[in-house]
């Protein structure tokens, strides 16, 4: 069996004395797209933030390519495991400034060809490089934030509801961009979403979180199929809010 990209083992987490994650176990294979589902406050974002140590997980609970992530240099880990947030949170300046930011931290200067290549990967025209970030639409800004994350050449992407603030057309465009990236770059993707059409279209596997626990896990067609009695189907039908 090949080494999984991510392995989460008995991960429990508390915040202000309140349990946020309870004994979570999860496995994500290389090149897989896994969707995390669950009601608000169920722990999806907390789990995602542990994977790049924006929140510190306990030692020996999360492994990246079989290595405990708490033993990896945290800045190097975050370059390998990129993250796209619900809000694009672009920095003031041009699109090119934003895309060049990550490599610059690592002492590398991107050439204009490299910036255009990253824009193309994120489905943005080359002339967007010199646009000011304040002039972009929500969907464009989110695709710039994807290009900005890709500039570090990550092998995995954590997506924290990146389409939830977008209109349906922009949402579809971002979704198609991510799918294309998985195919072209072989990225492993862990995606927090609450759109079922997104799950059915992109997910190889699904984990359902309820109250900090993994309540369901499996193939989305199976879990969300018409005859399904799984908790994921109940959640999709709005019975588990």
């Amino acid at each position: 069996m090949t080494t999984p990209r991510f392995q989460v083992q008995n991960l429990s987490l508390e915040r202000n004395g309140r349990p946020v994650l309870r004994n979570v176990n999860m496995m994500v294979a290389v090149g897989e797209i896994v969707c995390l589902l669950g009601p608000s406050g169920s722990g999806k974002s907390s789990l995602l933030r542990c994977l790049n140590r924006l929140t510190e997980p306990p030692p020996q609970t999360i492994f990246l390519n079989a290595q405990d992530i708490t033993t990896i240099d945290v800045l190097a880990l975050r370059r390998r495991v990129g993250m796209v947030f619900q809000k694009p949170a672009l920095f003031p300046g041009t699109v090119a400034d934003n895309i060049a930011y990550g490599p610059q931290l690592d002492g590398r200067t991107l050439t204009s060809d490299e910036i255009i290549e990253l824009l193309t990967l994120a489905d943005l025209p080359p002339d967007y490089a010199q646009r000011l970030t304040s002039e972009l639409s929500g969907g464009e800004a989110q695709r710039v934030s994807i290009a900005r994350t890709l500039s570090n050449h990550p092998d995995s992407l954590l997506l924290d509801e990146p389409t939830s603030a977008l209109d349906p057309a922009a949402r579809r465009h971002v979704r198609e961009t991510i799918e294309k990236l998985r195919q072209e770059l072989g990225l492993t993707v862990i995606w927090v979403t609450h759109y079922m059409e997104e799950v059915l279209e992109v997910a190889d596997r699904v984990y359902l979180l309820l109250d900090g626990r993994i309540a369901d896990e499996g193939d989305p067609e199976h879990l969300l199929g018409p005859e399904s009695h799984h908790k994921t189907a109940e959640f999709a039908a709005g019975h588990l809010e």
Partner: protein
Amino acid sequence: MLENFPLDQLSRIVAALALVFLAAIISRWQKLDLEKDILTASVRAFIQLIAIGYALTLIFAIDNPPAILFLLTVMTLIAGYTSGKRGRGVPHSGRVALMSISFGAALTLGLLVALGVFKFSAQQIIPIAGMVIGNSMNVCSLVMGRVRDEVNGRAPEIEAALALGATGRQASHPYLRAALHAGMTPIVDSTKTVGLIQLPGAMTGMILAGASPLEAVQLQIIVMYMLIGAAAFTGLAAVWLTYRQFFTANQQLVLPSL
């Protein structure tokens, strides 16, 4: 020691009290409900200032370095405590304020003495320290509040930068500049307009005490320069110590909302 109190000054104070009573009457007439506060504040100011007057007389008479250092320490502790209370929402704000003010004030006063601008005597150092520490306290409160607001308001951008491999310092750097700017602006602005809009306290005091205006302005120029230095030193220390309270050693942003 009471017999040393200049009684002719006391009669002037009593005369000036007429203004307080007039203010209290206006408050009652306009239903501002401030009469009690006005009277309490006036009594407190009288007692506090007379007490510090006697304390200073005593310390000036002793005039030995440990006594001066003791008084400077007490002043700094009070300033740190006051500024720390203003920094609500900044973890360990009291410690941050005390360290920033101590650093800014010690460096400023140390340089003034080392450069021979003032002697390390009670009569020179204590009034000067009062101005430096008071100014540092204001700068520190401003900077801590601004860093807190910037870090809270810019949390999405800061986390985006952290997720790209930035350290806490790199991620918050653009917003820290704004905080230091905010802390230093008041003293820079008042230095620009000094003498044009109002005569500052030290200068007014010297002129009222009989010094020539040219002597008074010399001291005032030194005071303004020293306050700019104190603001820069304290502001820099406060920015550096405050932002660090919001990040862990593993470059994670710590906010109650996260």
